[in-house]
């Protein structure tokens, strides 16, 4: 079930000033049904006209709260960062399919690049509660632009790479993955920039690879067919409805 809710903002705090924010919103219905890897569509103001898709970072089912981790990029996310505690915000969700979470006692890598780490926290919590053994691999541009690491640390072991080497391993997250003994890993779940996802595709045979994609969205509901990505069979799939999570094998990054 998809809901349109006008939720009260409980907190909207900068993790990095003018750049990375964590917002928590009272969204009773959405919280009830939200699955890891799903996202919401937010009306951030009069303009931009379109809603903005943001992944679900965390859910507090007991209290009906949804948290979102977001990066200010343009007008929409800038508007979002302006919401204050006590104000109300218009949100549609939960949307999309989400990651496969019926896994038990497996060894799973959760790989995130930049703001793509957002959906991995709630995902990690769910997978851990089912007895899986996890490792987060998080990529940032540099130490000063790293964030939310402590959240992930509370769930499982975290390894970090930065492009400039100022924190953790130098280079993109692949630098870490390639050093691991992948033979014990049964699944890799990832979200982040396309080059990172493309890189991970090389593990599509060895592990259950699931990739969360981004695409420019109109409706977010599967109706307008604007947010497509190309599948291996040459057909198009809707990122908002058929995704945002796809099996690595399904997706071709040709276009």
């Amino acid at each position, binding site marked *: 079930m998809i809901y349109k809710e006008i939720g009260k903002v409980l907190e909207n705090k900068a993790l990095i000033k003018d750049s990375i924010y964590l917002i928590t919103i009272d969204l009773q219905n959405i919280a009830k049904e939200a699955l890891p890897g799903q996202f919401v569509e937010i009306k951030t103001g009069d303009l931009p*006209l*379109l*809603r903005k898709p943001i992944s679900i970072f965390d859910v507090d089912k007991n209290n009906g709260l949804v948290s979102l981790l977001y990066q200010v990029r343009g007008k929409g996310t800038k508007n979002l960062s302006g919401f204050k505690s006590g104000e109300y915000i218009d949100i549609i969700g939960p949307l999309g399919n989400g990651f496969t979470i019926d896994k038990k006692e497996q060894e799973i890598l959760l790989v995130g690049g930049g703001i793509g780490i957002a959906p991995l926290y709630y995902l990690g919590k769910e997978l851990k509660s089912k007895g899986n053994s996890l490792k987060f691999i998080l990529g940032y541009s540099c130490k000063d632009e790293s964030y939310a690491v402590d959240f992930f640390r509370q769930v499982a072991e975290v390894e970090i790479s930065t492009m400039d080497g100022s924190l953790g391993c130098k280079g993109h997250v692949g630098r870490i993955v390639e050093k691991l003994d992948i033979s014990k890993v049964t699944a890799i779940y990832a979200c982040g920039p396309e080059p990172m996802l493309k890189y991970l595709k090389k593990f599509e045979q060895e592990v259950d690879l699931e990739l969360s994609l981004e695409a420019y*969205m109109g409706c977010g509901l599967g109706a*307008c067919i*604007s*947010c497509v990505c190309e599948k291996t069979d040459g057909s198009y799939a809707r990122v908002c409805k058929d995704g945002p999570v796809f099996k690595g094998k399904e997706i071709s990054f040709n276009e």
Partner: protein
Amino acid sequence: MNKLHCDLGKLILKNPVTVASGTFGSGKEFKDFYDLSQLGGIMVKGTTLLPRRGNQPQRLVETAGGVINSIGLANGGVDDFLNNILPEAKDYGTAIIVNISGDTTDDYGRMAEKLSVPGVAALEVNISCPNVKHGGIAFGTVPDMAREVATMVKNNTDLPVIMKLSPNVTNIAEMGAAVESGGADIISMINTLIGMAIDIKNRKPIIKHIMGGYSGPPIKPVALRMVYQVYKTVKIPIIGMGGIMNTEDAIEFIMAGASAVSVGTANFVDPYTPLNIIQGLNKYVEENGLSSYKEIIGAVHR
């Protein structure tokens, strides 16, 4: 009495508020929000004779307070519609209006024939697409081609035929007259303006297909003007659309000459827009002591 009862000649709707083709899927995607039977009608997303993959992404972008799209008529084809979509849609309790596009005049005829089945309330004929037999010139930009399509569809169906006008023409009244003389029962208007947006970082059009259809609030003044002009010229009813976001917008279109309206891009912004407008029109009719919303159709012409 239902003061929003909407009589478009051969097509009767429970109210004059429909949803525009391409912005509402087949309705299914909006079912979680509300009971679709409250709508005047659903213009189903553009259907073609054969399945189409559609254009390469990026297919859509917001610009200048509106939206540019170039979906390329991605759809499963008319048989898929009949087998997989209509069986569910016909039970929504609202008029299912199928929006059809063809590469040739014959395509339109064959689709009209195939779609003349119970459950389909009317055909909306999209003529903004290129005529492959005429160097890719859009059917909707040449009066004779538009008239021919209208006649072809009429000859292949008993359903009410709605001809959907393209705004990318010099003389919209002439286009209205052409489709009326071709036998159209109703005119819907406007389809999208052709627009473009450029990514100055990459020095490329943002939309992969270069140009796309521009919709949303910014096109409303053009749409209103065209409804006004076509109302002056034709006798058949008009379904008005183009940037309708709220009740006031809908009333502007009705006063310009529309007998019904269609909500497009606004469905992305707030899926409840059509319901809000139905409610708003009911309130307007009450507050102004009208016996029917019809009293204000074309009001600015008086």
